């Protein structure tokens, strides 16, 4: 077992440590003041709704910040191995390419756990300052935010395995935006039913491939404190795990066929 898991753990810890030592989390210095400032500003514009605004604003900013960090970390930590050729010294050790991919993924996921936890802590403080209550729904919203980050990380790594850093980053951001607007696709499908019935096949295919980030976004539920059943979190976790699993398999297949020249 040591021969399988120790290298994976070593790669994961090394990636996590690289992210920390490269001060990727230093951006929290911008995030916290920006979050509090925006909440105060918008809270003052909405009379007696300060706590609600603080909850909504916190989750939105946490999502933007978390996605930006996850995409940046996944691409730089993964692609840099190829660009800087550190991968030469890794893959010439007795490790398989799937161990390398899983190790890298676990390392970035560890970073996502840290990012989500810090975002939750800052957001909870922000809501408390605004006089609001830290509800279980708010906690679940950060669990599903973490699930979104795990999916976006796997997509960024898949793209980084065969394209440039810039292109991978842009496409991943596009996938996140499109996946967060899945209900708009349903609207488009209905409106095109009469004029272009064939378009529904295309829309169905896009919906099938795109991750459904909208279903994993609990911003409305958090703002209005709607109770979230546990089975929802279970289903969301299963969905994220399946999506991540398939994406990582594709990454491993691509990397296994690749020559490192």
């Amino acid at each position, binding site marked *: 077992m040591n021969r399988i898991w120790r*290298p994976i753990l070593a790669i994961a810890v090394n990636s996590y440590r*690289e992210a920390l030592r490269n001060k990727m989390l230093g951006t929290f210095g911008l995030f916290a003041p920006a979050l509090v400032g925006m909440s105060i500003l918008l809270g003052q514009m909405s009379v007696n709704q300060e706590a609600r605004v603080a909850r909504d604003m916190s989750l939105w900013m946490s999502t933007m910040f978390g996605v930006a960090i996850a995409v940046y970390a996944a691409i730089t930590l993964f692609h840099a191995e190829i660009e*800087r050729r*550190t991968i030469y010294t890794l893959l010439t050790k*007795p490790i398989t390419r799937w161990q390398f991919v899983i190790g890298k993924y676990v390392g970035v996921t560890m970073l996502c756990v840290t990012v989500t936890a810090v975002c939750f802590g800052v957001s909870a403080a922000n809501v408390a300052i605004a006089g609001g209550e830290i509800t279980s729904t708010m906690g679940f919203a950060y669990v599903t935010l973490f699930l979104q980050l795990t999916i976006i990380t796997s997509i960024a790594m898949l793209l980084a395995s065969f394209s440039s850093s810039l292109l991978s980053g842009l496409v991943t951001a596009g996938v996140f935006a499109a996946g967060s607007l899945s209900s708009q696709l349903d609207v488009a499908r209905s409106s095109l039913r009469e004029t272009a019935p064939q378009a529904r096949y295309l829309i169905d295919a896009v919906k099938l491939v795109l991750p459904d980030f909208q279903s994993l976004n609990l911003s409305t539920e958090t703002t209005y404190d709607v109770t979230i059943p546990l089975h929802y979190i279970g289903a969301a976790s299963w969905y994220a795990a399946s999506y991540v699993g398939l994406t990582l398999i594709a990454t491993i297949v691509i990397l296994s066929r690749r020559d490192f*020249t």
Partner: protein
Amino acid sequence: MTVIVELKDVAKSFRVGFRRRRVDAVRQVDFTVNEGEIFGVIGPNGAGKTTTIKMITGLVTPERGTVKVHGISASEVRSREDMGYLPENPYFYEHLTAREMLRFYGQLFGMGGKALEKRAAELIERVGLTEAADRPLKRYSKGMRQRAGIAQALINDPRLVILDEPQSGLDPVGRKEVRDLIFGLREEGKTVLFASHILSDVEAICDRVAVLHLGVLRGVGSVQELTSDATTRYELRVSGFDTKAFEYARTLRESVEDVLLEVDTPAQRDEVLKAVLSAGGTVQSVTPHKESLEDIFMRETKAVS
């Protein structure tokens, strides 16, 4: 004699550029590396040295032929269990210290605990990085980085050590240190395969050499086998003699005290010596020169080009 590395009829091409133009990096390479020997792969830039080494280390899959390490196909992970590798111009994780880096690479071999700590400390001392062991690699000089790279290649105490241009970019002291380290590895019974274009070092270090040019193996054998034993030219250091007397004698250097001449055959040598002595001049030295690896290298590359 145990064969450690075996390449049979190996070829590899790549697609490059927008039009996916095919470039043959290696066209036909066959050689074996035996246990305990220092084996050099030489050739000019673009000869296919690095691609050949990458096929041995499993970074590149051959298009044709077979590559085996310790009798196992290089595409299998098992083939790398008893191998250490230093890439050309290595780049390591700059956020790590040398000690952390060795710990990390050791863990990739499934090593851990006190055994790994001990091995890392031994190697740090061996490559002379004790003082800088806990300094981040980003603050290392090129030579120190190269030594750290050699240490990582030895972390698993491998039987086969592959070094790609290990002396590239090093000053004469650094080159000597690497050369001594390679000799040390041979004394421990390890097999060393290394690629280089510093021919004097290859000639001094290697038991056997493979000469590559344009992806084709031009020759393989010991330096003595590749070079002929016959003397190819003579250098004569003389004084008190008119150097213009013989057209075939080339003047290599001329000073107030003496002249350094070069001739090709024993007959020319004797004729010049006789003339010098009869003119009342002095013969200070006569040096016969045999064919060097550089001569072979230049001859082979010119022939194909």
